[in-house]
């Protein structure tokens, strides 16, 4: 069974379009994350949700909007796609405790490769 899954695996689209990436984890974790890996392989956190509540929101254009319908899902919606949005987007999850879970292992999905033309 896949622990953290993402769909689609590949996404090719035109500038200006709106697209969504879905993420699901079956690990029973409380916290989920979205990361962006650029063409130079630099990995940077975008958002984090804990029990459906937004807790980390890095400096990301407001064209990006995460949505968490329940704690097992964290979807990423991107409006008005730009060339610079081309990247690999990774979803991750971890088990957190009330005092904060900075020591917890994060489990990553396989990534969604987005190409904006």
């Amino acid at each position, binding site marked *: 069974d896949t622990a953290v899954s993402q769909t689609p695996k590949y996404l090719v689209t035109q500038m200006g379009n709106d697209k969504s990436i879905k993420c699901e984890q079956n690990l029973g974790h409380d916290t989920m994350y979205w990361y962006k890996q650029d063409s130079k392989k630099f990995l940077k956190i975008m958002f984090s949700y804990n029990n459906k509540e937004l807790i980390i929101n890095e400096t990301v254009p407001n064209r990006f909007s995460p949505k968490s319908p329940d704690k097992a899902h964290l979807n990423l919606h991107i409006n008005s796609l730009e060339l610079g949005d081309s990247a690999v987007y990774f979803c991750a999850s971890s088990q957190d405790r009330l005092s904060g879970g*900075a020591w917890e292992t994060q489990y990553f999905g396989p990534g969604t490769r987005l190409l904006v033309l």
Partner: protein
Amino acid sequence: AQSVTQLDSQVPVFEEAPVELRCNYSSSVSVYLFWYVQYPNQGLQLLLKYLSGSTLVESINGFEAEFNKSQTSFHLRKPSVHISDTAEYFCAVSDVGGTSYGKLTFGQGTILTVHP
């Protein structure tokens, strides 16, 4: 603010040779330290982590890393590499305590290529 620097972007090595992947970090608070590995076309997987206690931590596949607080380093080593170790390795840190909720700051990654 935290930062992580991986000093080598690429490390080529022959099979059965030793390897060291270097990682230095900067932080104003105490940190937890991690090494993640990314095999081609896959997501990242935890290789090992340092939380507290012994400064030398080991993974199940023969890698080890040593936390050196004075040098703010967490270098990854393996005495004898295999072809299957070919991957990209990421060093990462997160704050101890506070409300970081597991926010990881990653280095730029080091591509390890093991040649036969």
